[in-house]
Structures are given as structure tokens and as C-alpha cells.
């Protein structure tokens, strides 16, 4: 299943001392995600479809775009309606592992514990809130 990029969020990161921003994309898979069964989702960073990532009735998801596929655990976080997903270096939050933000090789000092949060309301509107020390770059269509 393909989707559209709704927004790209640049997350500061240092890998082996090199400053490399990780880009997390908010993807819109439209209204046609099967209500039952496993969604097959397209990951643009590795140019192929991924299977068995979970059952979802959600329209939106998060994918880390510029991250090597072999380093991904799953690489996809579902954004469910009326829920908030928080991204940061909090090791107790599974989403941060799924998005590759807690790679052991990273120096995550640039990343706040709760860097930003993304909320999807019941009408599929998206709110992106920055709680970080230095701010967050968000790329959206004009």
C-alpha cells in the first residue's frame, strides 16, 4: 500500500560523531486501509513494501525515511485517531525504538526526552507539538 507524505520532521541525531538528521515522515495511507487483516505498507527509504507490520484501522503512520533498513526493528508507528504519539529519547517509549531514535551508536544529546508529539483527532486533523530545547524543523507542502 502506497501513501503520501503529509509532513517530514527532522530529528537531530549524532551517529559516530557525525551530525545526521533523521527524517520522520507522517504518511497518509488514505481511507482504504483494510479494517481487518494486515496492512502492507510502502517504506520509501528502502523502496519496497513491508508486510506484517500490524493490524491497523488508521489512516496515518510514521516512517523513518533516511535510516538503513537493516537497522530498523520495524520502522513504522501507527497514528491512531484521537491518540497522541510522543517522540524523543525516552527509553521507556517503544515508538522511539521503532523509529530508530534510540540506536545504541547514537549520541542523542540533541534530542529531548519528549521532543515532540503528534496528535490525530477524530476528524483526521494532525497537530504537531514541539517540546524540545532547540526546536524542530517540519517540512510541509505549500
Amino acid at each position, binding site marked *: 500500500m*502506497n*501513501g*503520501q*507524505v*503529509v*509532513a*517530514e520532521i527532522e530529528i537531530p541525531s549524532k551517529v559516530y560523531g557525525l551530525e545526521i538528521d533523521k*527524517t520522520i515522515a507522517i*504518511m*497518509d495511507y*488514505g481511507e482504504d486501509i483494510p479494517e481487518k487483516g494486515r496492512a502492507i505498507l*510502502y517504506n*520509501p527509504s528502502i*523502496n519496497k513494501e513491508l508486510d506484517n507490520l500490524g493490524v491497523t484501522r488508521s489512516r496515518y503512520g510514521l516512517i523513518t*525515511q*533516511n535510516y538503513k533498513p537493516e537497522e530498523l526493528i520495524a520502522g513504522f508507528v501507527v497514528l491512531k485517531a484521537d491518540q497522541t504519539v510522543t517522540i524523543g529519547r525516552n527509553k521507556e517509549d517503544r515508538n522511539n525504538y521503532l523509529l530508530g531514535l534510540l540506536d545504541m551508536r547514537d549520541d542523542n544529546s540533541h534530542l529531548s526526552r519528549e521532543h515532540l508529539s503528534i496528535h490525530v483527532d477524530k*476528524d*483526521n*486533523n*494532525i*497537530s*504537531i*507539538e*514541539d*517540546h*524540545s530545547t*532547540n*526546536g*524542530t*524543523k*517540519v*517540512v*510541509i*507542502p*505549500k
Partner: protein
Amino acid sequence: MSEMISNTPIKKESLSENEQTILIHNQRLKLDSKRVLRSLDSLESRQ
């Protein structure tokens, strides 16, 4: 919907032609269900 991409790899460049970069800092950016920017507001101070 003409915007829907099917059977076409989605690349990072997919936003590049008509994109804008916004630095948000203790702010809330809202996009509606059609992915249109609706507001950019300051967050109240958090404890």
C-alpha cells in the same frame, strides 16, 4: 484523487517542489485532513 500515488515509489523529493520548512519551537502546528496548514500557535508553558 489525482494526488494519490499508486505503484510509484515515494521519495523524499515528493515534497520538494512545493514544500515549506517551518521551525517550530514550543509551538503547535495544525494540518487539516486535506494536509493544509491551518494554524501555528504557541504552547502554554509546561511544568
